């Protein structure tokens, strides 16, 4: 709904929907909106307090930048309409896509009957306890400030250790290998986790040598789908087929790891780190798979397999799209 159309239509009816479930653009009690997500840039607060928002009233917009203040400043270049009212914006941060969704809340505007309203002190609208909670969470989430460029062997190991656990696609596939091994029992329970790192290293070597392997992301997504699909019905192929399947997908995971060594770090320790992390993820899968001995555990494992396969479908969609 445009600003003009909103003014012509008059104030919206009070919504009876529950808090938190209101669709975009619907009126809603004012303090609920998560304005606490904003950094208090002066021009931003001024603009918000004057009822200007990104885009049009009641609408929603997408900003394709990480710089919150810069993007919003750009959005505020839209000239304000004369009868602008009070308003707040809701910011939803999506870390993966680096997109922001903005929603202008029109409740104060509705209250004022579409007339201009006095400026809104945004920060005073936030309950102190929420601010305190937010600050506490931010303090807990603090990470070390690195004043110097990190280099050296220990950092290489940590980078390698971090790489397999930094992506959910890797994590789920590794754990699924462990789960499937636990379902199959000996000797697959140890043969698969032995087989995987060896072939993964070969994939890593291909990456290091610059050999082009097509469809890496698709292969990783397919590994999650097929390994999850194997755990779900508790598939029991022959050991050779199971090992071959796991080994085939290990190439894609290894290739992805092998091509992503940060500059200036030890290749050996990076390699050791990611092999170690991969092995530990298999170990986690095997440890979880020990619940196979109980009936309820078998059901849980099958559900976990279904979850992994489902996540694999999402990864595939992302890889293809």
């Amino acid at each position, binding site marked *: 709904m445009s600003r003009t159309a909103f003014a012509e239509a008059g104030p919206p009816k009070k919504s009876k929907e529950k808090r938190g479930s209101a669709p975009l653009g619907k009126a809603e009690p004012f303090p609920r909106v998560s304005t606490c997500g904003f950094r208090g840039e002066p021009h931003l607060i001024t603009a918000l307090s004057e009822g200007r928002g990104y885009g049009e009233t009641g609408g929603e917009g997408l900003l394709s930048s990480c710089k919150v203040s810069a993007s919003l400043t750009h959005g505020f270049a839209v000239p304000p309409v004369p009868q602008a009212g009070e308003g707040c914006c809701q910011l939803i941060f999506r870390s993966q896509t680096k997109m922001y969704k903005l929603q202008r809340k029109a409740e104060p505007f509705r209250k004022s009957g579409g007339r201009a309203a006095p400026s809104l002190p945004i920060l005073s609208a936030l309950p102190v306890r929420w601010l305190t909670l937010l600050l506490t969470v931010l303090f807990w989430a603090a990470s070390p400030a690195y004043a110097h460029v990190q280099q050296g*062997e220990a950092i290489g190991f940590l980078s390698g250790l971090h790489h397999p656990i930094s992506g959910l696609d890797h994590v789920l596939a590794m754990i699924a290998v462990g789960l499937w091994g636990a379902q199959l029992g000996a000797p697959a329970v*140890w043969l698969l*986790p*032995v*087989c995987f*790192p*060896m072939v*993964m*290293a*070969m994939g*890593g*070597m*291909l*990456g*290091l*040598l*610059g050999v082009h392997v097509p469809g890496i992301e698709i292969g990783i997504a397919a590994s999650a789908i097929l390994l999850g699909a194997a755990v779900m019905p508790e598939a029991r192929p022959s050991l050779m087929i199971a090992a071959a399947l796991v080994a085939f997908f290990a190439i894609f995971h290894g290739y992805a790891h*092998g091509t992503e060594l940060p500059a200036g770090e030890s*290749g*050996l*320790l990076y*390699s*050791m780190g990611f*092999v*170690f992390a991969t*092995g530990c993820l298999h170990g986690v899968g095997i440890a979880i798979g020990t619940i196979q001995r109980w009936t309820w555990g078998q059901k849980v494992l099958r559900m976990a397999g279904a979850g992994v396969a489902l996540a694999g479908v999402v990864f595939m969609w992302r890889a293809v799209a």
Partner: protein
Amino acid sequence: MSKTSTAIESRLPVFFAALFAITLCPLRAEAHLNSTGLGPVYDGLAHFLLSPEDLVPVLALALFAGLRGAAHGRRALFVLPGAWLLGGFVGMAATTSRGSALTAISFLLLGGLLAADAPLTLRAITVLAALVGLFHGYLNGAGMGQPGVGAVALLGLAFAVFVLVALAAALVVRLRWPWTRIVVRVVGSWVAASGLLMVGWALRRG
């Protein structure tokens, strides 16, 4: 007053006399190892423990020897440090050390043997330990370069190798549950995988 406290009180004069005698003959506080001559020993020891290129193959060999049995472990325990020393002394006379690709192969070989739990004979283990010790010792010796200090450092390094092999092999020899031995083999596969990647790094550098 109890008997114990009485006995303690009666010994107090002797205790204080002994304390006084000790304070009369103080020794120099050797806060730095350079003055004791032991600095290079610790240098060598620390060098080994902080160098994964040396540490990991030794660990893999020790685990493998322990997996094969106590006799194999004992053989590796004495052959490996001895060969390391010998190789180190030879390496000191050399001017260059180019061993990254061969180090990768030692990772690959030892990790593969450990993962497969290959049934090597005692003689084969001896030869393997000697080759590994000579090769890695040579690289260490060539890297140290200085004959005087380097030789002492090599002693410290060989001592560290001895201790690590003794601990690791003894640990594996004592393992009884089948799954624990499988864990050791899985560690071997990790070493071999790292070796494969090292080959990739070496080939990439050209």
